[in-house]
């Protein structure tokens, strides 16, 4: 067997805080070997220690104890040598946004000692591979998210390193770009015999790896091929559908049913992960419902992952109850958008967008980064004036409406946007009083939020110090303090791990059941399944509108009888490109 390209031996890493009791153990006794010539995935939820592991591997951190060898070198004693031979792409890749694509390449070519005469050929090859060839003169800051990642990858690949370390290269990247990134990585492995260690929070990507390292709370839970993992839940996966209940109600009920580890809306059915193997009975799962179909399904890596994490700790929240008092008025179309337009200088961010949202609906805006979702969103919330077209939210344009009109809406911004240096309770109290709740009513709502979102243990913690999942819960709670009947959620699940995402959607479903209208943007295609209706946006325009089922039906082909939302999206984008080319030819 070949010598491992990367070997961790009993590595322990602790982050010291001022108070010794608060020291956090980020990696605990982690040992593994990675054999050359394959793609290894480092999988784990948020805060599992993935980034720390990556940084240790390239000598940027010194472990508390244990040994790390990279390509036969000691990562601590010979860190300069290690850094000279590996290729590394940090989470926020170090592109200089004020330099052009070509200038970034030149810089890294110089820094990686790429000989002058080899450069031209390597540049052409990489630019061709990444599809960036037409944009070499553009500033890196003006590239889309996916293009930035590809440029970052190209910079790390300039010298064709023997070991390539990629820290969450696909975060926030649209599905088309993600496919392209993976293609580039595979090509390197196949043609150059490169070894790749790649961390990701997208569980579907785990199945594209040769081998997976599963990391959770600093501990290595397992190492093996994706099928090794999924075979452990063989016989525990089922698809359930029932004629008498909506998918959403079905999922809520199944989530509470005995023996169910996980219930997830998937297409027209609900996917179940059971605690034990064996066909579950209808009486057990859904007593009192007729026409229930339960079919076994093939296990996936995600099922194994959820099963592993959910059995490890039972302390995750059990959401689903939303005790809200919504005075639903019965105007039918609560949000109306007609030929909406927004310009920034010469650039048209939102172009001729129209859609309607009905009361009590979950309505999705889907699209890659830069598709114009957030801009549309900000206009609806009254944060940005429209350049043209009409829009109304509960009959009003919030940008010009009086302040009182905003009492009906709740808003959760894309990134965490509560006050980091205020405690959880202080944040909640502040937003409650900003919405005019006082005295007894305020106490009541704060108590409700802390109870519903299970924040009691963190009441006095500064919001900044919460983990990402709890930050998201807090933002969600703050947006609901005044019981709004319309809720705007901008990329609520971006960067959040699969467990927290499930929790989040369970709550949103409960809200919609209670009559709240929800407008949500997301770039996770599978989350579209939670929406009643959605629009897909690209480059500021609407590509398609309809229910998730309709969208997927359009993408159905002979080869692919059960397309995913992602397939549907990619098909729409490709079709658009084709139309564009046709136009160009004509």
């Amino acid at each position: 067997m070949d010598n491992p390209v990367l070997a961790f031996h009993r590595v322990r890493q602790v982050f010291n805080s001022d108070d010794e009791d608060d020291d956090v153990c980020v990696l605990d006794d982690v040992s593994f070997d990675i054999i050359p010539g394959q793609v290894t995935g480092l999988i784990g939820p948020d805060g599992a220690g993935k980034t720390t592991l990556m940084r240790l591997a390239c000598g940027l951190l010194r472990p508390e104890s244990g040994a790390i060898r990279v390509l036969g070198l000691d990562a601590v004693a010979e860190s300069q040598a290690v850094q000279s031979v590996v290729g590394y792409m940090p989470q926020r890749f170090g592109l200089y946004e004020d330099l052009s694509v070509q200038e970034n390449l030149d810089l890294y070519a110089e820094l990686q000692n790429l000989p002058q005469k080899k450069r031209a050929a390597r540049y052409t090859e990489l630019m061709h591979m990444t599809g960036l060839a037409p944009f070499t003169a553009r500033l890196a800051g003006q590239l889309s998210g996916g293009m930035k990642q590809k440029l970052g990858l190209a910079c790390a690949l300039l010298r064709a390193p023997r070991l390539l370390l990629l820290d969450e290269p696909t975060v926030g990247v649209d599905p088309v770009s993600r496919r392209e990134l993976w293609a580039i990585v595979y090509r390197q492995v196949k043609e150059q015999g490169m070894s790749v260690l790649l961390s990701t929070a997208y569980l579907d990507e785990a199945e594209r790896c040769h081998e997976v390292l599963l990391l959770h709370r600093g501990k290595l839970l397992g190492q093996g091929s994706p099928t090794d993992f999924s075979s452990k839940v063989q016989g525990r996966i089922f698809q359930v559908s029932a004629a008498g209940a909506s998918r959403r109600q079905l999922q809520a009920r199944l989530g509470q049913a005995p023996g169910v580890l996980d219930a997830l809306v998937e297409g027209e059915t609900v996917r179940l992960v059971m605690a034990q193997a064996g066909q579950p009975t209808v009486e057990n799962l859904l007593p009192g419902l007729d026409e229930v179909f339960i079919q076994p399904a093939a296990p996936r890596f995600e099922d194994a992952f959820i099963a592993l994490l959910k059995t490890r700790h039972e302390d995750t929240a059990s959401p689903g109850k939303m005790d809200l008092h919504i005075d639903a008025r019965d105007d039918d179309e609560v949000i109306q958008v007609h030929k909406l337009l927004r310009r920034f200088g010469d650039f048209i961010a939102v172009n001729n967008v129209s859609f309607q949202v009905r009361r009590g609906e979950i309505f999705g805006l889907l699209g890659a980064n830069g598709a114009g979702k957030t801009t549309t969103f900000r206009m609806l919330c009254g944060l940005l004036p429209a350049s043209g077209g009409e829009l109304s939210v509960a009959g009003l344009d919030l940008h010009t409406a009086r302040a009182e009109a905003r009492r009906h809406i709740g808003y959760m911004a894309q990134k965490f946007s509560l006050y980091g240096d205020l405690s959880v309770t202080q944040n909640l109290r502040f937003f409650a009083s900003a919405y005019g709740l006082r005295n007894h009513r305020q106490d009541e709502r704060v108590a409700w939020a802390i109870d519903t979102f299970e924040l009691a243990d963190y009441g006095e913690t500064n919001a900044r110090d919460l983990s990402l999942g709890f930050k998201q819960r807090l933002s969600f709670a703050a947006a609901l303090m005044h019981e709004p009947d319309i809720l705007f959620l901008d990329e609520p699940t971006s960067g959040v791990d699969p467990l927290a995402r499930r929790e989040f959607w369970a709550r949103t479903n409960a809200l919609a059941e209670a009559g709240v209208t929800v407008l949500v943007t997301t770039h996770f295609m599978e989350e579209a399944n939670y929406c009643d209706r959605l629009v897909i946006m690209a480059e500021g325009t609407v590509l398609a509108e309809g229910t998730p089922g309709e969208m997927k039906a359009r993408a159905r082909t002979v080869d692919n009888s059960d397309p995913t939302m992602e397939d549907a999206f990619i098909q729409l984008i490709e079709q658009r490109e084709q139309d564009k080319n046709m136009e160009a030819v004509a």
Partner: protein
Amino acid sequence: MNFLHIFALARKEFLALMRDKRSRIIIIVPPIVQLFIFGFAATYDLNDVPVAVYNEDSGGASRELLARIEGSPHFSILHKISSDAEISTLIDTRKVLLVIRPGQRFSADLQRGSPASLQLIIDGRNSNTAMIALNYLRNVVLDFNGEWQREHGQTGPPVKLEMRAWYNENLQSQWFVVPGIVGSLMLVVTLLVTALSVAREREQGTFDQLLVTPLRPVEILVGKAAPGIVIGLLEATLIIVLMVWFFDIPLRGSIPALYLGILLFLVATVGVGLMISSICVTQQQAILGAFLFIVPAVILSGFTTPIANMPEFVQWLTYLDPLRYFLVIVRGVTLEGDGFVLLLHQFWPMAIIGAVTLVLAGWLFRHRMY
């Protein structure tokens, strides 16, 4: 306006500023340290100016005059030299500022009643220091002359100069500079607190969260201005107490007038700070913006150099500087004993600056969004 809203916002601003130990320290400690260091450092008074004497005269009169110079706290004679060459060495290398050279016939001339000349060679590299040193020396010589004439039965000059300084009787520059430092420190502290407040919220995204609540721009404005003003008032009180206690600066005028001045000054600077803050998108721009305001505001305020000496168009610019008016008020109340009436023309311009900048800031909250 809903006072509950304003109160909630102001409370939040305070918590955000004061919960963190580091930001508490940044607000409180540097101003006090700076008051002490700069209060002692920033003085135009000269003590122990190094002097060399090249005395070619052997008489007693020159020794008597030199003894007077030595006796003054402003001068100390460090070198006695005996050749021309040494003069330039000592002055060039900055070992002395001044060389005093009584001529060979100094005492003889004096005895005969004809004018005796006292040569002075002074280093003009720092012209201000040179001018002050010459003034000190002229006073010593004038005193010497007066006494000599009396002792030797000569008539003095037919007109006698009786000079007195009002308000700062001993002309201590600390009395002038320390109140100026008080004003400048308040400007820096309040501007930094407010200039970052909106920019930080914009950068962190919390400003959007604020704008979608039913809060009105006026309420946001008042809520954001309140902490700057309250912190400024407390800080001003602390600095003024230190000023009176530690630097022995008199407080002769009306304290209510002083506080009205402080309040209006704070409103004006908070207005400028919030305006800078709502124009800027990032904290870095806000710091740069605050800096671009602070530097000219301090220079043009009359803190170290008189406004009257500036060219006319620069003097017009100073009317836009709230610190200009505030310094007159602080110095007026502490040293000159002024009350409301004499300071009336300092109050209203600050009120106008405050009103205009606050209205602009409030308008920018909603109209600058990308």
